């Protein structure tokens, strides 16, 4: 498995944010982590990216134990955070080169990787443009290009479509699905929007720190459809 979470538990004081969460994702699989606000998705992402650590449970990324060999695990992971993490005063190319350097890559190799990443996300014509001057969709594309720069085995995206218009959102969902299929990339996509999940996707539904469902989206949804099923499972009503 490329991504394996075993018996993960985390609490903020007396409030349990994650309660014995376990799931795994195979290479090339797109896994949607679906949960309403406050389900524990962001806490899980903070643990997966080692912004938090816990002794309750185990995380494995591409065969590396996050607790024992965190740097090896982080090196195999690309992340698109929910909040924007671009340096707005740097150009597209400078943002990519800065990240490449944080991954230990410089010189001609860094240039090649940055150019490849921009080509893949179709932002090469904006290489010299400051991140501040990009629209929301292009900023997200840049963040995705950056997350793929070091050829990770696992790609984590924490609600990456927040703030995007419908067209940009659909394009991003399609592109990341394509990445999983064509590059054998393991994807964990956190969202609270059911229309971002395709029928054939692997789906983990998280609610109040617990996994309520784990399987193929189409099978979990059944005849009721994913939206209805999700609302029924989480006990929430449609607005």
């Amino acid at each position: 498995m490329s991504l394996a979470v075993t018996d993960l538990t985390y609490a903020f004081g007396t409030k349990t944010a994650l309660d014995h969460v376990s799931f795994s994702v195979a290479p090339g699989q797109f896994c949607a982590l679906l949960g309403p606000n406050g389900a524990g998705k962001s806490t899980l992402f903070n643990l997966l990216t080692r912004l938090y650590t816990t002794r309750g449970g185990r995380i494995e990324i591409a065969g590396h134990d996050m607790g024992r060999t965190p740097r090896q695990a982080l090196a195999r992971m690309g992340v698109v955070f929910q909040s924007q993490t671009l340096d707005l005063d740097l150009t597209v190319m400078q943002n990519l080169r800065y990240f490449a350097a944080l991954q230990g890559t410089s010189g001609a190799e860094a240039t090649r990787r940055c150019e490849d990443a921009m080509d893949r996300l179709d932002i090469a014509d904006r290489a010299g443009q400051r991140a501040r001057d990009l629209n929301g969709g292009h900023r997200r594309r840049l963040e995705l290009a950056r997350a793929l720069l070091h050829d990770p085995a696992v790609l984590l995206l924490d609600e990456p479509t927040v703030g995007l218009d419908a067209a940009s959102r659909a394009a991003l969902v399609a592109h990341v699905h394509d990445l999983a299929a064509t590059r054998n990339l393991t994807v964990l996509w956190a969202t609270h929007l059911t229309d971002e999940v395709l029928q054939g996707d692997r789906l983990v539904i998280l609610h109040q720190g617990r996994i309520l469902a784990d399987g193929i989206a189409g099978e979990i949804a059944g005849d009721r459809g994913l939206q209805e099923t999700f609302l029924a499972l989480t006990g929430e009503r449609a607005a």
Partner: protein
Amino acid sequence: MSNALPARAWATALGAIVRREAYRFWQQRARLLSALVRPLVWLLVFAAGFRAALGLSIIPPYETYITYETYIVPGLCGMILLFNGMQSSLSLVYDREMGSMRLLLTAPLPRWWLLFAKLVAGTAISVIQAYAFLAVAAGFGIAMPWYGYILVLPALVITGLMLGALGLALSSTVKQLENFAGVMNFVIFPCFFLSTALYPLWRMAESSRLLRDICAVNPFSHGVELIRFALYGQINWASLGWSLLAFAVFGAAAVWGYDPARGMVRRKG
């Protein structure tokens, strides 16, 4: 890329972090101007006004009577390092609030190294500003021996690292950007005024033994004395030791403060 990054990669990341800081500084050139205005006001207005009131005896490293302006130059270099150290930390709190701190802390490098790289970057900017101030002061006729300008470099670096580490440690305890202003007021002003930056220890002892003792243990005093002696080609070993010790303590506190097991980023960012 299945193994941890080699040592060369550590240097690559350090270089990138320093370059990024330098680039931001270059883009905010007004920062250099404001960093110079503050000490120059002290030097050209405050010191001129107090020259008559504050008589100074001959104390090491000085071998003759000096003007008050000459006396406070090392303290004002320290002031630049102190303000810049806090400003760098302020930018860390900002980065944390804005989320860009996550990018840095998820790099596959030891966290202490990433923090050290931020510290080196901030110190490099501080030292440039201190040299700019020394050049302007020399332009106003307050000059040091020529060799002092070379020998002061390691003293500025050590003091800059020490004060930057203090700011880094403080930034790990601050939840929100707005709270940082309060911390600065409670740190910068006591640090500066309860030190040897503006008056020597014996002067302070004349008014209060307690205040003199506080000044004597204030790490900022030792940073200032390290700079003062270096400007005259001498090493104040006690100040060097205190400054290095304070750097180690503040640095350890910063690493502890940013330890993921403590969930520093859980507050935000």
